[in-house]
Structure formats: structure tokens, C-alpha cells
């Protein structure tokens, strides 16, 4: 049989800021790898073996000296040698994506407290991580998110009303929208990482140029399945980008009970994965780290492990009460590192954003979220008759019988009219 011909659409995903929320238009742009602008890097030698500060490879790495890639400092000052050189449209796009994530987050919390929403996991404080890890992806690239990823999911093209549906317990909230190459988010810690690597293995076999980004937490790193995924990705040279969002906590379990090293990045070289440790609250650093990993993946250089250092500013989920197990004081320093504030300081210094403009962005994001909530309220309807569908492609007779029985039950309960 002939090789299937697959074209690689060269556009990166970008939210079209004038579009209805959650729906995106991909503006085709060049994916030619941006010249590496980090200090000490010879831009004439791009590709997988690119030696970068913060990147480890197993040939010569001083684990103790592990550098964390940072471009924006806490005061919003940029390291000019490492500035990825984004244009103002991109910079403002990044800003809005983070603000939108936070607006969505806040609205979800209100809705949950008012009983309109199920238990959910806030992103608060992790917006740069979320947005940064998918910003550079194209529509053909894949994304396999954990449950704490709606900031990224919105950007990937999940309508916000669908995310509301999902967290409100409607099945139809789960499937990725057509055209969005995402997996449904993963609730079972670590269970989505091997499938993501499998997609990357299929991509390599099909000689496509896409990459797969998969994210997970510091706690997830303890799951054996994730170690297996690291190993499969490394051995198969699969274009997977494994992003650990190290937010310091797994529910009430702090890092010291979770792992015995200072950094999780040190796991990467143990499996032969080029590894980058990055300030996950620094959107520019996230972009630069992802660019390197994406370039490596597209060019046949295989997988990359990224440890993004961040902090869970809020609850684990709405069912959680952090006052039981962590001191307020601990989060204090992280307030200064707030990814949005930091980036706004930078944008202001650069003259791209005024205080008023920032307030407008916030207001417009809030409005967008409220509109999505309206759509959600209009569509929020369960489909009790449908729960037997889509388990098998063709329903087996025994299951049809069970469905009959079930439909009778529904009828007794005054629902549906199938029989």
C-alpha cells in the first residue's frame, strides 16, 4: 500500500481576538524555527543537540548547577540576550490569553460556590505555564492535558461553554471539538502520558512533522506510568514534549514527601531526554523553552522533558481546603511572581499596555466568559437516553437489551419515549 500523503499545515494556533470566545482561526505563519537568541548559543547550529542554558543532556551535565531558564524577572525586566523577540500583537495576545484564563477561573469558582458547577481544579497562578505550553503549537500538533489545564484548552480551541459543560458533569463536554487535536483531559493522574507518547510514536512512523505536548503535575511524576512514558519517548525518539508543571503541591502533599531531589528536571537525563527547567511563571521563558522542544520534535530529534516551576495559588480543587495543610506565608513570595502581573509590568515598561488598557482587557475577558456562561446555560441539558451510545461502534445485542431495560426505567421516571 502506498504511504498515505499527509500535508502539514504550517500555521500556529492563535486565538483570533475578534472572534467569539473559544473559537479560533488559525492564521498561517511560518514555522521556520526562530533563531535561538539565548546567550552562548550558536544560531548556525540549530536542531536537537543545541546546547542551551538550562537544558541537560546525559553527556555532560552538572545536576547541581541546574539552571532555571528565566527571561522576565519578578519586576518585569527582560533579559535582552534571551528575549524571544515577539511582536506586539503576539505579546498582547499572550497577555489576553492569560487574563482570559484567569477570568474563566474566577467565574468557575463563583459558579461552583453557587451550585452551578461541579468540583473543579483552578489554574490560578499557573496561567503562563498553561498558555506558554500551547502557544507555539499548530492545529495539527496534539495536546494531552491534565485536569488543571483549561487555560491551555481555551487557547487550543475548546469553546468555553464546552468546558463549563464538562465541569458541570455533561458527557458532551468531554470530546475534543472537531479540528482540535486534543485528548480529553485526564483525571486519572498520569494515565494520559503514555497515550500522548503513543501519538508521537505514530507521528514519527508516519513521517509527519507534528509534535505532541502533554502536561502533568509534580505529584504525577511519582506514577510509574510516567517513567515508562519517558522511556518509551526516549527510546522511540518520538516527538513528544513532556511538560511537568511543578506547582509544589499534590493536593496536601508537598514536594518533600513526593520526591527526594531538589528538582524534577533531574529525572529527564536519567531516561536520555533532553531536559529544560524553566520558570513557569515567566511566559517568555515558557515560549523559548517550548520553541526549542518543538523544533527538536519537528526535526526528528525526539522528545524533550520540561520542568516548569510554578505555584498553585489557589485550592487544589473546590473540594479542598488548603488552610488545613499549608501556611499562608508560603504563598506570599509567589504573589510577586504572579505571571500576569509580571508580564504586565513588562508590557507597561515596553509601552504596550496602559493601566486602563489592562483594565479593559480584564473587562472584555470577563464579558466573554459571561457570554460563554449564557451559551452554557442555554445548552446545559443532560442526555440520559444517550448513556449507552459510543461505547462500541456497533452496540452488541446484550447491551441493546440492557438499554431497553434502562429506557423502561427512564419512562417510569418520566423521561424519554424510546419504547
Amino acid at each position: 500500500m502506498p504511504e498515505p500523503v499527509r500535508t502539514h499545515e504550517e500555521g500556529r494556533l492563535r486565538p483570533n481576538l475578534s472572534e467569539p470566545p473559544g473559537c479560533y482561526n488559525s492564521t498561517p505563519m511560518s514555522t521556520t524555527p526562530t533563531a535561538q537568541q539565548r546567550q552562548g548559543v550558536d544560531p548556525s547550529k540549530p536542531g536537537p543537540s543545541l546546547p542551551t542554558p538550562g537544558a541537560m543532556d546525559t553527556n555532560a551535565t552538572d545536576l547541581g548547577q541546574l539552571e532555571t531558564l528565566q527571561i522576565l524577572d519578578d519586576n518585569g525586566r527582560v533579559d535582552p540576550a534571551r528575549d524571544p523577540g515577539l511582536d506586539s500583537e503576539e505579546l498582547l495576545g499572550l497577555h489576553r490569553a492569560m487574563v482570559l484564563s484567569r477570568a474563566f477561573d474566577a467565574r468557575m469558582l463563583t459558579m461552583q460556590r453557587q451550585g452551578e458547577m461541579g468540583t473543579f481544579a483552578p489554574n490560578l497562578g499557573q496561567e503562563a505555564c498553561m498558555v506558554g505550553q500551547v502557544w507555539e503549537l499548530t492545529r495539527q500538533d496534539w495536546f494531552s492535558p491534565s485536569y488543571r489545564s483549561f487555560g491551555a484548552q481555551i487557547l487550543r480551541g475548546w469553546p468555553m461553554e464546552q468546558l463549563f459543560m464538562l465541569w458541570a458533569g455533561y458527557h458532551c463536554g468531554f470530546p475534543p471539538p472537531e479540528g482540535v487535536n486534543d485528548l480529553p483531559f485526564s483525571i486519572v493522574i498520569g494515565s494520559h502520558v503514555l497515550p500522548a507518547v503513543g501519538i508521537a510514536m505514530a507521528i514519527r512512523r508516519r513521517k509527519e512533522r507534528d509534535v505532541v505536548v502533554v502536561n502533568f503535575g509534580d505529584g504525577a511524576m511519582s506514577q510509574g506510568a510516567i517513567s515508562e512514558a519517558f522511556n518509551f519517548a526516549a527510546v522511540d525518539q518520538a516527538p513528544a514534549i513532556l511538560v511537568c508543571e511543578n506547582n509544589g503541591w499534590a493536593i496536601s502533599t508537598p514536594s518533600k514527601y513526593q520526591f527526594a531531589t531538589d528538582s524534577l528536571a533531574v529525572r529527564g537525563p536519567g531516561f536520555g531526554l533532553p531536559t529544560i527547567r524553566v520558570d513557569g511563571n515567566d511566559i517568555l521563558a515558557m515560549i523559548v523553552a517550548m520553541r526549542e522542544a518543538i523544533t527538536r520534535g519537528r526535526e526528528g530529534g525526539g522528545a524533550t522533558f520540561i520542568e516548569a516551576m510554578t505555584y498553585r495559588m489557589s485550592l487544589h480543587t473546590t473540594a479542598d481546603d488548603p488552610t488545613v495543610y499549608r501556611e499562608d506565608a508560603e504563598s506570599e513570595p509567589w504573589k510577586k511572581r504572579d505571571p500576569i502581573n509580571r508580564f504586565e509590568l513588562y508590557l507597561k515598561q515596553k509601552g504596550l499596555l496602559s493601566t486602563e488598557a489592562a483594565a479593559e482587557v480584564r473587562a472584555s475577558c470577563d464579558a466573554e466568559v459571561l457570554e460563554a456562561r449564557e451559551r452554557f446555560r442555554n445548552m446545559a441539558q443532560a442526555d440520559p437516553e444517550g448513556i449507552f451510545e459510543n461505547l462500541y461502534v456497533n452496540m452488541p445485542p446484550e447491551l441493546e437489551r440492557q438499554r431497553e431495560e434502562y429506557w423502561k426505567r427512564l419512562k417510569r421516571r418520566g423521561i424519554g419515549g424510546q419504547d
Partner: protein
Amino acid sequence: MAQKTMVEALNLALDEAMAADDDVMIMGQDVGINGGVFRVTKGLFQRYGRDRVMDTPLAECGIIGTAVGMAIHGMKPVAEIQFSGFTMQAFDQIEQNMARLHNRTMGRFPMRVVLRTPFGGGIRAVEHHSESRETYWAHTPGLKVVIPSGPRNARALLAAAIDDPDPVIFYEPKAVYRAFREDVPEERETMPIGKAEVVRPGKDLTLISYGAMMRTCREAVEDLVDEFNIDVELIDLLTISPMDSETICESVGKTGRCLIVHEGHRTCGIASEIIARINESAFEYLEAPIRRLTGYDIPFPYFQTEQHFLPDADDIMTAARETMAWE
């Protein structure tokens, strides 16, 4: 007697066991200062310290695998898996070591591991948080499977499980965790593992269930008796494996009719085993096909529809009346 929820009753049983025996320890995710996500281990970390109430890394296979090792060295770990859906991550250690090691070593090593885990639906949880997979464990030789239905028997059975020399899967019906209070005696109390309880004697129909479904059954029984004059014998299994065939078959020998209710999936479910045993030991007394009202053979649905997946009192009454009507 104090009025306690199931969560409080379980906490009491754990506290008593730890106070009485230094070898008893608790391990699991967030069982320490947080007291577990359902607060079953609340206060125990403060009382017994980290070495005996251990917040483990996030790895179920690791929790059960190391618990097995602790048991080999004579400790009595009570391991919590945060939701029963995540026992899949520990399946290998449960099947290959926890269930078998006593046999593999011809009794040389003790294997006093209790695996506690909340199971079942009804609390509007996200996916993978409402599983009832007791069949997996009932089908696995070497394990005991215990499922309480209320605060008092939860406390007594957990005490018995920790006392038990064999490994126990202790499935806690999370829908009951805080659903109601019950008198729980001050003094330590145990119940025998392997014994079902005839909650209400009757002569027309045997109704068998366990866990959270017991509440729904009780509700149905009231109406069946009062409104329809059906004298139901209600049995709470309490231990799923080894199953108390005697109590079941004796009852059906008397009533000739039987209805079994559980949340777990139907195919190869616990009801199918009960039917097989009645068929073997009480065939001649059967006056109607045994009826099973179970979870369907589909994944537990998303929470907006879960109430329809779960049988309610009306479904039980309907099935019971149909069974009574069979000729």
C-alpha cells in the same frame, strides 16, 4: 453510644487499632495532616506521627507494593487508595503479591494488609471516581472483600479487617460517608468477616444487596411490605468474598424468589455469582428466575446522568413485584 457518620466511625476504628497495636500504620495520599480527602484519617497524623500515618508519593502501585513489604516484616499497614478507580494502578501488586504471597510462601510470611478505598456513585464526582469493581477482587483468589453499609458495621468490620490475618479489600460506600448518623458503641466492637446479615426476616422474597444500595433497598422494603404486602427478607452481604452462601441459600430455600441489587456492572457481577450458587444449592426451591438489578455494562456515566444509572427504590419495587408475579 455516640451518633456517628460512617466517616467518623471509620476514623474511630483506625484510632482504636493504632492505639492498641504499634504495628498498625496508615499510608496513602493525603492521609496525613489533611486527614484524607474524605477526612477518614483526620487527627491520626497529629496523634501518631508521620512514620505511622504516611503521606505517600502519588503512586498506587507503590503504596500497595510497599504495604506488602511492610506486612512481610510483620507490620499491619492500612493503605488508603483515594478512589477505588485508582486501584487499577495497583492491580499488579494486589493480584501478584498481596493476594498470593501468603500462598506462595506456604504461610511463611503474614500478609496483613487492609486496602481501604471509597467506591460507588452518587456524589456527583468527576469521571473515574464512581467505580464499583468488587468483581475484580471477588474473582481474585486470596483476597477478602468487605463492604459495610452503615456507620456501626463500618467500624466493626474495619476493626475485624485489621485483625484479620488475611489481606482485605475494604470497599467504603462513599455515598454513605456522611449520609446519616447511627449509634456507635463506645467500646470496641467487631463483626465476623464472611457473614451476611439478615436485616429483616421475611418469607416471600429474598432481597440481597450491600453497600450504599442497602439504604435504597430498605426504603423499597418498607413500601413492599406496607403497600404491597410482600414479606421481604432483606440480606446485607457485608462480606462479598468469601461469600456467605449458607445465609443466601437458606433464605431462598424459604422464599423461593430472589432479587439482587448492586451498583457494579452486570456481566460477571456479584449477582451472577449469587445466582450461580443459588442455582447449585437451592435450585429445587426456586419458583421464579432470580432477578438482578445492577449497574449496566457501560462506564459509570458523567454525573448529570448518574442518578439514572443507579437503581432507586422504585426500580427495586418494580423488580420485586415482577419477580413475585412470575409464574
